């Protein structure tokens, strides 16, 4: 039992890396594993986009794809963003990429669009626009201005063109012309949308959320209160969403690694506890024998 308590932590790191790498190197090994169950959060996320797409008025409105993440959380946020953009493209919805938390967000969002644009025949300007990055400190003032004058508040797009001149922004004046907000975040940026934009128009704008899984628990009360219509919980949420879309990507191929790594952590916690209890018992016996 001393081995358990004195195990070199580097051995655990190596074990973890091996457990994660096996399903990625040999996907066939994990084929018998069950697919992730679709949670209510993911299902309602999917249903909300379907509902928006089914609304004839949505054709003249725009979806905001808010990319407030950076390279540090690519595995979670980029997968969520990619699956969402794919869904928007499948349903031919016009959208705007935007970021106000980290400048990398607008570029990572653009990378996602570039990857999928050819497959769904999406063209910059005609079908989507990239509003670019705005500093977080100015986000509240910017969104408050964007309630009545969205093109004026955003100014110019990532290519330096006035947003009012971009084809897909024609007829978009303010908050009432936004059909959906999709927020992908690695920090607490959701409240800005909830507090200052979502309910500023004639009717509340449906809002979807893709947080890192660390942040998901705190957002559950927004779903409970109806301020969020759906949520993708980290990488797991993204893999569920890919299943619903029937388009498997990185999240689907990573879900087996995610499950196995959790299993390993649980086993290690149990073993660690067994080691601790046995050692405690041995110590008590030794002290009693003195």
């Amino acid at each position, binding site marked *: 039992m001393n081995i358990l308590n004195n195990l070199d932590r*580097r051995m655990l*790191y190596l074990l*973890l*890396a091996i457990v*994660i*790498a096996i399903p*990625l*190197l040999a996907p066939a090994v994990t084929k018998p594993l069950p697919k992730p169950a679709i949670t209510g959060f993911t299902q309602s996320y999917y249903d909300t986009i379907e509902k928006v797409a089914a609304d004839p008025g949505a054709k003249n409105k725009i979806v905001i794809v808010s990319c407030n993440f*950076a390279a*540090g*959380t*690519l*595995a*979670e946020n980029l997968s969520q963003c990619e699956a969402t953009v794919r869904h928007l493209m499948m349903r031919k919805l016009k959208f705007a990429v935007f970021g106000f938390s*980290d*400048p*990398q967000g*607008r570029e990572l969002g653009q990378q996602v669009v570039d990857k999928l644009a050819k497959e769904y025949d999406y063209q910059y300007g005609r079908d989507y626009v990239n509003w*670019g*990055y*705005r*500093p977080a400190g100015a986000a*509240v*003032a910017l969104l408050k201005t964007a309630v009545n004058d969205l093109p004026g508040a955003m*100014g*110019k797009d*990532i290519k*330096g063109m006035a947003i009012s001149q971009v084809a897909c922004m024609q007829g978009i004046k303010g908050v009432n012309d936004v059909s959906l907000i999709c927020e992908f975040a690695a920090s607490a940026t959701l*409240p800005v949308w*909830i*507090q*200052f934009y*979502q*309910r500023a128009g004639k009717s509340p704008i449906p809002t979807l959320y893709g947080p*890192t*899984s*660390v942040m*998901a*628990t*705190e957002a559950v*009360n927004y779903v*409970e*209160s*109806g*301020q969020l219509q759906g949520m993708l*919980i*980290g*990488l*797991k949420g993204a893999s569920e969403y890919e299943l619903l879309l029937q388009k498997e990507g*990185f999240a689907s*191929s*990573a879900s087996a*690694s*995610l499950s196995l*790594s*959790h299993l390993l*952590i649980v086993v290690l916690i149990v073993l660690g506890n067994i080691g601790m209890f046995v050692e405690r018992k041995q110590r008590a016996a030794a002290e009693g024998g003195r």
Partner: protein
Amino acid sequence: MTDGMLKTIVVLLGVLTTLGIYSVLYKENKIFRFFEHLYLGLAGGYAIAANWNDVLKTNWWEPMVNDGKWWLVLLLPAGSLFYFIYSKKNGWMARLIFGLFIGLAAGQQFQGCAGDYWPKIQTAATKTLWVDPAKINQEYPVAAYATVLNNWLFMAILTAVMVYFFFSFEQKSTGAINKVSKFGRYAMMIAFGAMFGNTIMARMALLIGRIYFLIHAPEAMSSSGP
């Protein structure tokens, strides 16, 4: 340099950087320190460039220089006031701009609180606490009862957690208030446990992302073409 070669170099640098950063798991070393500082420098430089290109250049410099909006120059001294915080003699000037922004933020908080909490209060206050026989779905009747049970649980936890944070009177260890407060504490501990579980998931996801990148790096380089 062709696009393919450039992509190969970018992927190779990505592999080197990933391995360099993870080398700290073996032990603290100079390679890790180098890549850590490189990352910080890159992120800082990138942020400065993005702020200039996306924000200052398009919304301030170009309108001021090209479109004749000369009055935008007045923003420069106003913004510069922030930097007087570093001056012992003229530090009071920084207070002017800080005061303005603190006032703005305080005003925004009123709207922020209403926008954030009012829908939550509304939902909590209008939860269904009794099963309405007329609204039971005959195909799945248990759902109505489960929803009501969930709502009772929600209300119980909400009350207990609020009692836990109510410090206006003494919570005696034998009193009913103390028992309710304790229930609130346990409920919060369960929530924190869920948060911790999700934290593990997030950390695993980040590691999976990097291992996936390393495994598929040769593929990414070969697909980059000549």
